[in-house]
């Protein structure tokens, strides 16, 4: 568990709120809550996770009960409920991927990173997690980096290259 200091999140910036406003504008004026999924993912992109503070700020912004926001955070698999490594890697291991080395790719990464699945490297660079179907079965082995970037046809060589690149980027 991280210390209280690292669990503290920064208040939402004007830039973040502008991104929220763009999402809210998609929905009827009395249905601002519809933007909660997008707002949570924006916060996660900017801060790396969804903190209770962020949930409260989003709740205020959308006129929701904080618990209603928390229900969404906890229901959907991709929201990070605690700080993770700088880069989160999710490897699909569902059956179509398993048939094409998805599980092997996950184990290869664990070995390369020297951690167990679900853990974060000691330098805080990379968190490794399994994933469920990403809807890219013909691209197997397939993985996501920080929710938004899908990497396809990940052979062992490409996995090594990915890890080396992300480790270097984490130091910058």
């Amino acid at each position: 568990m991280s210390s209280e200091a690292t669990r503290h999140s920064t208040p939402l910036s004007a830039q973040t709120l502008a991104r929220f406003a763009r999402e809210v504008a998609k929905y009827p004026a009395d249905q601002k809550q519809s933007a909660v999924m997008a707002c949570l993912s924006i916060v996660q992109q900017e801060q790396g996770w969804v903190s209770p503070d962020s949930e409260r700020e989003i709740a205020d912004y959308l006129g929701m009960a904080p618990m209603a926001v928390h229900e969404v955070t906890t229901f959907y698999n991709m929201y990070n409920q605690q700080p993770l490594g700088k880069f989160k890697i999710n490897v699909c291991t569902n059956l179509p991927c398993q048939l094409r080395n998805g599980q092997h790719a996950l184990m290869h990464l664990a070995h390369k990173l020297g951690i167990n699945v679900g853990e974060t490297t000691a330098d805080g660079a990379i968190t490794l997690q399994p994933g469920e179907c990403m809807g890219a079965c013909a691209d197997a082995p397939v993985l996501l980096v920080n929710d938004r970037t899908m990497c396809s046809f990940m052979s062992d060589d490409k996995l090594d290259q990915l890890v080396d690149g992300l480790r270097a980027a984490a130091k910058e």
Partner: protein
Amino acid sequence: MSVDNFLAQFRASGVETCFHDRHINPQIYAGINGQNWSLKDYEARGGYQALRKILGIGGGEPMTQDQVIATVKESGLRGRGGAGFPTGLKWSFMPRQFPGQKYLVCNSDEGEPGTCKDREILQHNPHIVIEGMAIAAYAMGISVGYNYIHGEIFQTYERFEAALEEARAAGYLGEHILGSSFSFQLHAAHGFGAYICGEETALLESLEGKKGQPRFKPPFPASFGLYGKPTTINNTETFAAVPWIIRNGGQAYLECGKPNNGGTKIFSISGDVERPGNYEIPMGTPFAKLLELAGGVKGGRQLKAVIPGGSSAPVLPAHIMMDCTMDYDSIAKAGSMLGSGAVIVMDETRCMVKSLQRLSYFYQHESCGQCTPCREGTGWLWRMVDRIENGQGRESDLALLDNVAENIMGRTICALGDAAAMPVRGMLKHFRHEFEHHITHKTCMVPAYV
């Protein structure tokens, strides 16, 4: 080098899976190459001609709402998301005269294991979905729509948003489309990792900013949908089929396929084939032909089993599958379902117990927890299959698996429970001996699982 630039090298190009010459008479994937997704390219391929046609722009009388719906009915188009419900009939259920707000929703929450077709439609030909939705909105008198896109394909969501901006700027979306009296606003929303949101009422809950737990039906979305208003929900590929139908006529579409199974269909082939990918072929094409297009079984091995319609469809052994044609009726007659058109191929080296173990894990992981038979039953199924796989199965487990599956089916609000139970029953029906071998000998009867 920025992280985004570094990661770009690992992005799928679509060359292997979509831009190949092994489609047969493609309509949706016709002429796309990964570079030509934008509006001007789509227009050059004849894009938005169908929308112009129904609005009577550029010559000809406008089509009436009834004429559009009749054309879609005539085409034999059936829902491409999995249920195969006739699209024209669904559109006719929308109470067009309802005075309040009505909604159109596109279900792009493509997460059924094995399915990866909608992603490549939205990524490489997004305007075909926008045009299809605009036509549907016109036919049903709807002024607002949403496309709910699987959270895991975020880049595709961003691509679709870019296409929406182009369509708005060109007057294909918004107020008074192309100067007509028809107005339609379309927006994109995204999920964030919940298989259940592919279920249409769970999707609506999610779109309302809630947990994605399915609603009890009735009332159906046509009367009580998004924000409690009449709503029509179709799959991405279904909307993508519509422009061709309007341009060429319902009869022409029907003739592409076979009776009651009109048109082309995109099949996603994954697993043990030489060339996994998406293949758009006429409905009714023999499975053997589809397998050939995908390069045959990997490494020249023997075909063992096929899950023909996404992970929820019961598995079929090779000898049954090789006699099937790829359409709703043929696959249903063989005891499975065409579903979303996701064909998972398994060769002779695959253990069916291990395969089912992974699928059962998925369903217990993704059960929303609302209904007891599914929440508890999917856990039971997984734990039993898991212990059989691990050599700790009991003699009584097979009867208990049957019993638990039986007690889930038909006893839940949505179809996820059935989707978890059907693969179990399919495996036990066709490959019971493998499960018995695992229990008796505490080991696998298949030589190697690589």
